[in-house]
Each structure stands twice: as C-alpha cells, then as structure tokens.
C-alpha cells in the first residue's frame, strides 16, 4: 500500500505539471464559457444549453486527459529507463501499475473538480437551479473516464502511445455503441451473429451505463440503484483490465 501511494503521488505530481493537462483544462473551460455566451440564442432553453455543453465538455475532456496523459506515462518511464529506479526497489510490478492508475485517476478527479466548479458557476450566473442528476451525471462521467484509464493502462503495458490512443479511442467508440449492437443483432441477425454480438457486448465496455446527461439536462428522474450498479460495473471492469495489465507487465523485460 505504501508503495502504491508513493507511485500514485509521483504520477499525480507529474500529471499536474504536464502542459497537456493545463491545455485540456483551458479548452474545457473555454468550451463551457462559450456556451454561456451562446445560450441566449436558444430561446427558453438557456439553462439546458449551458448544462448540455458543460456536461459534454466534462466528458470529452475527461476522455482526452485519460487517453493522452495515461497513454504516455508508462511508456515514457520505460523508454527513458526511469522505471529502473522503481522496479529495483521493493516494489511489485502490480503495485507499480495500480499506483500509476491511481495517480492518473487522481489527476482526472482534479480536472473534473475544476470543470464542475466552472459549470456550477456558469449555471449560477444564469440564475439556474442545480439538480442532483447533474452531479450524478458528472460522477458517472468520472467512472467512465476511470474505466478508460484502466484500458489505457492495459494497452500501455505492451504497445506504443500512438497505438494505445488509437485502441482506446476505438474501444470508447465501440463501448458507447455496444448497447445498440445488441439491439441490432436481436432484430436483424441470425443465431451465429447473435452469439458474436453477445460476446462483443460483454467484452466491450458498456459505456452507456455511465451516460446520465439526458436526464440531467431535461430534469428527468433517475434511479440511485442504476448509479450504484454503474459504480460496481466500473470497479469490476477496471479491476479486470488492471489484472490483465499486470499479467502482461509481469512478463515484460526491460532491455
């Protein structure tokens, strides 16, 4: 535990001192700010526009930070041989990976906190009310980003940052549509097709469970049980990803 905290703290420190984090944060804040100025154009739906853009911005920036930051951290350490200093101390390789993931997630939490603060300020500026669904939506976006961080960590144990980014973005796109895949197969596919799509449905991350933006923007009710289930799903999926990452990383040689 001691070593996991040390690696996580170092990763967090490294992340917040990276230019890419500041740039992503600035981009997100500008995106949200623009929605405040553009919202008067949508007559009667001013608050909805601000909320919709802000929640989308938080989700997009979260994904970008997870992919761009997480994808380079492990590779950079291996490539520059800084990892020698860590792995030649009493630090297990799984502890190193878990620490790395925790550090990246901590940086993502910081980004989410700043952006949520800006969103709350933007909504308050427009004299709008904040519903619990808005915060639930931000929380689920954070879980989605955590799952993506664990996927990034898996790929970064055996491939380059460019391929890690590519594979993770592919999985993000596929995961966002995995629910539709099942519906499509049940309506149009044969038995074989159904088995294949079912397999993909369970293997790919089902990112739809983390999307509560529609309910948050339109003030629709949501079930707390769904949020709990999504939390459990994120924990299990991330644990499985990290487990496979550890299996690969344990076998890896540092020439």
């Amino acid at each position, binding site marked *: 535990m*001691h*070593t996991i*905290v*040390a*690696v996580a*703290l*170092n990763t967090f*420190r*490294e992340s917040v*001192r*990276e230019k890419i984090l500041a740039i992503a944060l600035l981009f997100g804040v500008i995106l949200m700010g623009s929605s405040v100025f553009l919202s008067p154009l949508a007559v009667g739906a001013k608050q909805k526009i601000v909320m919709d853009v802000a929640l989308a911005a938080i989700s997009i920036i979260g994904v970008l930070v997870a992919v761009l930051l997480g994808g380079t951290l492990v590779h950079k350490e291996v490539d*520059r*041989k*800084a990892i*020698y*200093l*860590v*792995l*030649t*101390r*009493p*630090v*297990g390789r799984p502890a190193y990976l878990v620490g790395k993931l925790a550090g990246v997630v901590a940086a993502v939490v910081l980004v989410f906190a700043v952006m949520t603060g800006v969103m709350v300020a933007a909504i308050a500026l427009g004299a709008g009310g904040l519903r619990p669904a808005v915060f639930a939506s931000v929380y689920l976006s954070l879980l989605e980003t955590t799952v993506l961080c664990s996927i990034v960590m898996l790929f970064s144990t055996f491939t380059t940052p460019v391929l890690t980014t590519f594979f993770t973005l592919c999985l993000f796109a596929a995961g966002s549509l995995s629910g539709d895949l099942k519906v499509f197969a049940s309506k149009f596919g044969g038995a074989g097709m159904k088995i294949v799509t079912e397999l993909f449905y369970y293997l790919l991350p089902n990112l739809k469970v983390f999307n509560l933006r529609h309910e948050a923007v339109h003030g629709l009710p949501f079930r707390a049980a769904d949020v709990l289930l999504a939390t459990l799903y994120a924990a299990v999926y991330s644990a499985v990803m990290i487990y496979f990452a550890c299996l690969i990383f344990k076998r890896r*040689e*540092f*020439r």
Partner: protein
Amino acid sequence: MGRRLSRHRRVRRRGAVLIHMRGFAMYVLRVVGVKKYFRSDMSLARREVLHGLSLHAQAGEVLGFLGPNGAGKTTTIKVILGLIRADSGSVTLFDRPVGDERSMARVGYLPETPYFYPHLSLGEFLGFCGALSGMGGAQLRERIDAVVETVDLSAHRDKRLKTFSKGMLQRAGLAQAILHDPDLLILDEPFSGLDPIGRKMVRDVLVDLKKRGKTIFLSSHILPDMESLCDRVCIIREGVIVKCIGLDDLRKLGEGRVEVTARRWRPDMLGGIRGYVESKRETGEEVFLVVREQRFVRPVIEHLYDNGAEVLEVANEHCSLEDLFIQEISRPGARTKEEKKEETHVFTGF
C-alpha cells in the same frame, strides 16, 4: 526471528562486517550458470548474450566487474536486478531468488545512464525513492539531508532535476542509491560524466561504504579507480567470465620482477644478459627491461654501464589491472562477427 532481526540492525549500526552474523548469507550475490538469449524485434533468430555466466560477491566485498563495450555487463546487472529474466541458471540476492521484495529492500542501484524525473526537485525525487523503499517521516527527512550533503548537492535540493548537469544527475543517482542505507550496492559506471572533483567525491563515498562493511558490485571502465577500490575483479568477455582474481593476488603476479629503464641502448647489449631479462620494450632512445628476479638486477645494471648505456630508473614491477584487462581481452579465442552470427539459434519453442 525477531531476535535475529534486532541483532542484524545492531550490527548494521556498528558497521561491522555482516559475514560474521549467525544465519546471515555468506554470499550476498550469487549468479550461477546464467544464460540469456536476445531476439531481434523482427526476427525469430535469437542470439546468446550470456553464456552460462557465474559469479558471486561475499558480504563486505567490493567486486569489480570489467569488460569491453558489448561484453554483457549491463545485461548481467539487469538479470541480477530482475529487470530481465535469465533463460537458465539462477540468481540469488541474500540467499533469496531475484525479485524477492525483502532482498530488493537491501539493494541500492545506480543505472548506467540515469534518467530521473525532470518534473521533480532533488528533495522530492529522494522523498519518492525513500517512500518506495518503505521509509517515511523524520527518518526519511534526516536521510535526505545526510545523502544530499554526502554528494555535495545541498544547495540544489529544491531545484528541479531538469536543470541539473550530467555530473549533478550522476551524483543525484548515487544519493538515491545510498538513501536507504542498503547492504548491497550495484553501481553501473558511477564515475561517468563526473569531473575530477566529482570522481574523488564518489570514490570517497565508496571507500566509506566499504569501511562500513557494505558489499559493492562495481562496473566501470576507469581502471585506476577500480584498482584502488576493489577487493576482487571479474572480467567478462562476450558473455563469459574469463577471469576472477583478488587484487592482492593480482599484485603478486608480478612480484619479484624489476623493471630497469636505460638510455643509449643498442640491440647488441642484450647478448650478455639475455638469460636475466624476461621482456624488453623500446621507445626511441629508451629501453625498458623486465628482469626476472631481484638477484639478476645487479649484473644487468653493471652490464648496461659497461657497454655505455645510462640507467635511468630501477623499479619493482607489478601487474596492473590494466595489464590484466588488456591481456584477457586480447587473448586469442575472441569470436569473430561471423562466428557470433552462426551461434544465433532459430527460436522454435512456444
């Protein structure tokens, strides 16, 4: 067990040689018959880089590890530290298999080309390294103060590592290696990038560690430093240990022989003293004659004077580490590139 551990700590504090402790491993480091193959990225053929390598380091010993570039020194070190796996053979640190966290806690390592975290200050970096070694709180702060002073970087403690010169990074590397007061230090080219003052500082640190009974595994090309620091050296050539010798034994190799340096030498002078002289080396007007035994020195000198030569110096001859290194590395038997190529094996096992 508890009693043994507390005794261990007491002995460490006194800086005594740990070999005398009951139950303590005689060999701090033991490498037996290690083979390692590397496969190039795009090919199935694999090349043997370590050919059943064996060596050991005893507690309190400074073991020098010498070899030309590409001989397998860094690969051996990486196998010892578990950064790469041996394909066969065994490696133990403190009688435990490589990678065991209890033994790794007692190892300090300085890599050949240290790359540290540029975003961290020296203090933050050492704090991170200490935390990884299980240190914390006041104990860690005290140790950081002490090692920063030891490597003469106190004034740079709060500066980011990205502003450090190569020599300063090397010293920071040494600081992290000794931070947790390890029993075994593995140092890969610790003098690299250092100016003469930095080299002296590192040498002094190593001498102090040696006095405190630490085991040091030292890989370097700076032979005079190796000769002054090491108790024993192992020479590796093409993945094989070709020679392991104690420095005392090395000095004895040339014992009894005397080198006579003379001027105005003529080749015909050798006739009368051929039986006394072991070897002869000429540079311009000067000649260096290695006399076999002490008792032959006087007749050789008299012969040189009688024939008009001028004796400049008479000195006891001893075999230096450089002599031994060159002798072992240039010994016939080195494989050619073509032979090495033939030795690559086609990888078939999955």
